[in-house]
């Protein structure tokens, strides 16, 4: 299976699409656009999983695709939007590293991922090699997003991108056991993180029970 054959090309296209969306995530300046891109990436991940399930004849991957679509393309983006609306958060992306330098760093990371993965996997099937390189790039870009953004929601988005990359790698390897379980567990973790952010925001905004919070305002403590 190599260039010019349909299964390879489609898998490659979907993986490349995810990588492209990772870059899109990096250069957005509005949080709403970031969430849209994340939903799109989740949808493409679901497509990639379904395509792999069709190609490998592994029906459990359809389940993975379903879960990915339901949670990542629909549920979590809706939740994040609700969070954004309800607490009236800043709609701007606050960066620790500028947009331009982040993109340059992202390109360097993709190059690094290719340099690492391609020689290691020499000899295995081409589709796995390319997929692994793409997945590692997505993972690294997710981590890059986590450390170059100050906003908690954007850090959660980075973590989700990272997890998308892991799932992409898992579905791309034929015969990988426990893919469904892995993706479900990762999903539960993501839901917990998003829930945690909710709780954190609520406590911070309205519902604090810590009286030391008041001392600052009364001038007893700097």
């Amino acid at each position, binding site marked *: 299976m190599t260039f010019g054959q349909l299964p390879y090309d489609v898998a490659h296209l979907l993986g490349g699409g995810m990588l492209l969306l990772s870059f899109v995530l990096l250069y957005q300046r509005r949080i709403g656009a970031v969430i849209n891109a994340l939903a799109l990436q989740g949808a493409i991940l679901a497509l990639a999983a379904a395509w792999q399930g069709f190609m490998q004849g592994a029906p459990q991957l359809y389940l993975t695709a379903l879960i990915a679509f339901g949670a990542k393309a629909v549920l979590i983006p809706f939740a994040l939007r609700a969070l954004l609306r309800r607490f009236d958060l800043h709609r701007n992306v606050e960066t620790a590293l500028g947009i331009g330098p982040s993109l340059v760093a992202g390109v360097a*990371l993709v190059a*690094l991922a290719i*340099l*690492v993965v391609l020689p*290691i996997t020499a000899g295995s099937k081409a589709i796995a090699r390319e997929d692994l390189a793409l997945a590692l790039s997505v993972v690294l870009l997710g*981590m890059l997003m*986590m*450390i170059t953004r100050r906003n908690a929601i954007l*850090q959660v988005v980075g973590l989700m991108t990272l997890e998308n990359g892991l799932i992409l790698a898992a579905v791309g390897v034929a015969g990988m056991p426990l893919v469904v379980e892995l993706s479900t567990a990762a999903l539960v973790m993501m839901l917990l993180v998003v829930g945690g952010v909710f709780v954190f925001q609520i406590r911070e905004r309205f519902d604090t029970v810590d009286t030391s919070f008041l001392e600052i305002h009364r001038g007893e403590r700097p």
Partner: protein
Amino acid sequence: MLRACFPAGPCRSPFAPRRAGGYTAARDSLPPAPVLTALALCLGFLVLLAAAAVPLGRHPRAGLLVHGGCLIAALGFAGIALAALLVGAAPEGLLLPFGPPWAAARIGLDGLSAWFLLLLGLTGAAASLFALGHPPGPPRTLPPFPLFLAGMALTLAATDAFLLLGGFELMSLASWALVAADHEKEENRKAARLYLIFALLAAACLVPAFGLLAGRAGAITFDAMRAAPPEGWRAAAVLVLGLVGAGAKAGLVPLHAWLPLAHPAAPSHVSALMSGAMTKIALYVLARLLLDLCGAAQPSWWGVPLLVAGAFSALLGALRANLEEDAKTLLACSTIENVGLVVLGLGLALAFRGADLGPLAALAAGAALLHALNHGVFKTLLFLVAGAVAHSAGSRRLDRLGGLIHAMPVTAGAALVGAAAAASLPPLSGFASEWLLLQSLLAGWRVGGIGVQVLAAAAAALAAMAAALAAAAMVRLFGLVFLGRPRSPRGAGAREVSAAERAALLLPAGLTVLFGLFPATLLSLAAPALQVLTGPAAQAPARGLWLVAGEAPSGYAPLFIALLLVLALALAWFLVRRRSPATTQRGPVWNCGFIDPPTHLPFGDPLTQPTAGGIAQPLRRMLGQPLLRARESLDMPRPGETRPARYAAGFEDPAGPLLLAPAARLRDRIAVQAEKLRDLTIRRCLSLSFATLVGLLALLAWLESR
């Protein structure tokens, strides 16, 4: 189950046939493998003893059991070492049924390790016997003692770097627990902390040193390392790391700061073992690493760092021994001096071997080996004497003792033997080995290169000075502790120690006399060790009962000297008897013009006797000011003032301000930097791990592209 590797046919060690004098007959009565089996059994016995000491700790007879067991094991070590030296042990070693994950552990004995095992057995036996007679210490001192012995024996029995370092660390940790045994006192805690730091430094240097050798050899066994000697920067790195690592444990200047603190902190039998055996184990590691494993082809300049460090250790240790006022600290400083002398011998052996001067290399190595054994025995004796005195007279401070020769005659006799040997007086053991060492130093001009020649001449001067200073220190020690009158009521009430302790003192004292009278026999016993150090053609520098200085026409016949001394003494005694009146007459003693002591000081006013500081004064002024930053201050009241005059004198070891203080500052600076990591935000923490990941991936990519 133990599996022994029997060689095909009757095994004769490669060392066995070569014997000087009357030892030419190789005795094959003992097959070699049982020697190693016995060694393994002794090691296992010690470990079991340590395990048993934990639950039994508070039982009144636990000390009896543990120290009795240690005595048996130590005697076993001495016997095993003798058998290995005379007959040879199986050169293949003995496979133990356990070990590190990659291979079973293999123990073995060659000439060098057997020689040091003999030393360990003798000193361990004396120390254990002393502990048997001594009143029991706190229970927490019991389990580490057998482990300490086992660690040292394991270091010697190792045939690969892993086992050697394991034994070395076991030794360090167990002795640390013993140094920290009396941890209620602040100074003991400080000593234990410093001791641990230096033990860590030793490990941090020795592990990479062996790693460099193993990396080149591709295996960690000694055989593989010997087959692939290091070259270039690797060799230099091994030299530096080995010297620092083993030197830190042996107490070489400038890494000696822990020694004068740790020895007084430990119980007496432990400090005897630390000084007599543990520093020698470190020297064994040094000799094994630099003289054996690095191959015989190393150049002459390899001896230079050892020469310099050894000469300065000898001088500084001997000088400090003259200034210290605590008996055990004084003995610890004397240990620094003697370790320096042994390292001097090893360095000379390296220099001679590099210049292809085989007989002279054997002479220097023989001097080092002999001095290591002799010092181990007489220093054990002296530390045990210090322990007996401290227990019986209630103090270790020289200014609170005195006149103990009347109350403790046996201890005083043993101390006299030990002090005379430490002062290198013939015909005792210290003289024989220092004579050999000075002979080899005087032959130092035969190494080519003006630098080494000048260094050898300077080292000879320093070694001679150190020997003289050591003699002065021993005169001061014996005179202040045993002669004169008691200086405190507690000292006046001293009693002779128990029978077991007396036996423990007489054993090393007898060995000191014996080793002094028959050094040539001992050296021919050490011939296998010499062959390990200086090549298979090495001959012990001994002929019959004479010591000979290589090819030089000088020799030392201890029996003859002893006979002359006995004759001279007998003649003097005879003349005195002959010329003196027939009956002893007793009359009033002139008290040097002092008034009679007051009634509350029945033993006389201590201030009328010389003090430790007073005897040290001339040397402190002469040598202490340039070398030890000695200082004196006098606060004299003006006429009419009623306050007393005050005189204060002291000194500071240069290792403190030059080594320890900068190291402490560096530690503080690093700690401040490391503390900053705790204040990082979550984003910075993530960045750290992300940077690590990217760095590792980049490393992987770089490695693949090569």
